């Protein structure tokens, strides 16, 4: 996805990849924590979530992602960084499709392809 184009070092590419993985895992973990219909309501629901690993996994992912993102942005221009970070939207939708059977309608597929195209343009040409 990101060939050895002048400005992108392997450290930057690695941090970018790590950020996508952590963001997707975090979102999916929160979804798994919040989506359990047996969890009840109000305080009982929070207790149910706190007693299971999903919520904590999500929080851990987000804390590490926070640091990874700071490191990532310190190495490349901010305008390029936020554009490359848009790939998270795609990763989460594709993961939602496979793990939760969420539908990918035609409009969604077009949106995913456009975002991917944009990220590729920026990643390859800076």
């Amino acid at each position, binding site marked *: 996805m990101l060939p050895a184009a002048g400005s992108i070092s392997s450290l930057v590419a690695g941090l970018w990849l790590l950020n996508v993985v952590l963001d997707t895992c975090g979102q999916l973990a929160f979804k798994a924590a919040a989506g359990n219909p047996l969890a009840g309501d109000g305080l009982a629901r929070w207790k149910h979530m706190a007693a299971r690993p999903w919520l904590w996994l999500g929080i851990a992912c987000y804390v590490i992602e926070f640091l990874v993102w*700071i490191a990532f942005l310190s190495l490349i221009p901010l305008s390029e960084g*936020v554009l490359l970070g848009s790939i998270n939207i795609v990763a989460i939708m594709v993961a939602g499709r496979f793990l939760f059977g969420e539908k990918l*309608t035609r*409009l969604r597929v077009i949106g*995913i392809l456009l975002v991917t195209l*944009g990220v590729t343009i920026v990643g390859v040409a800076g």
Partner: protein
Amino acid sequence: MKRFYLFGFLLLMGFDTLSQISFKYAGTQALPVAASVAWLLRVFGQPWVYGAIIGYVGAFFTWMSLLKHAPIGPAFAASHLEVVSVMLLSVWLFDEHLTVPRVLGAIAIVAGIVCLGLAESREHPPEPAA
């Protein structure tokens, strides 16, 4: 009510923009990057990282209150369109350049986000009598 949504979307974009700008300042001041305690101390030893946290928390609560009332499609789009405001501010604050690939990439990404927002709107039609 329209004005309320618009204000909410702008506030959300504002918080997200604040976060990204703060991340950039925080990261730059903590250079060089290293997987070390020293780097963590540099990150948390200057004020910008707390700007990023304020932006995150603000965006979270704005998003939650928007979702209670606002249509999900535009809310989704607004939560990702900070790429545009951040890009423009980077030119001003960090002397970055709007290169052709960045502008083309941003156009494709924004078009994609709009499509995804429209898809959300179609799948979750607004409830009658809000």
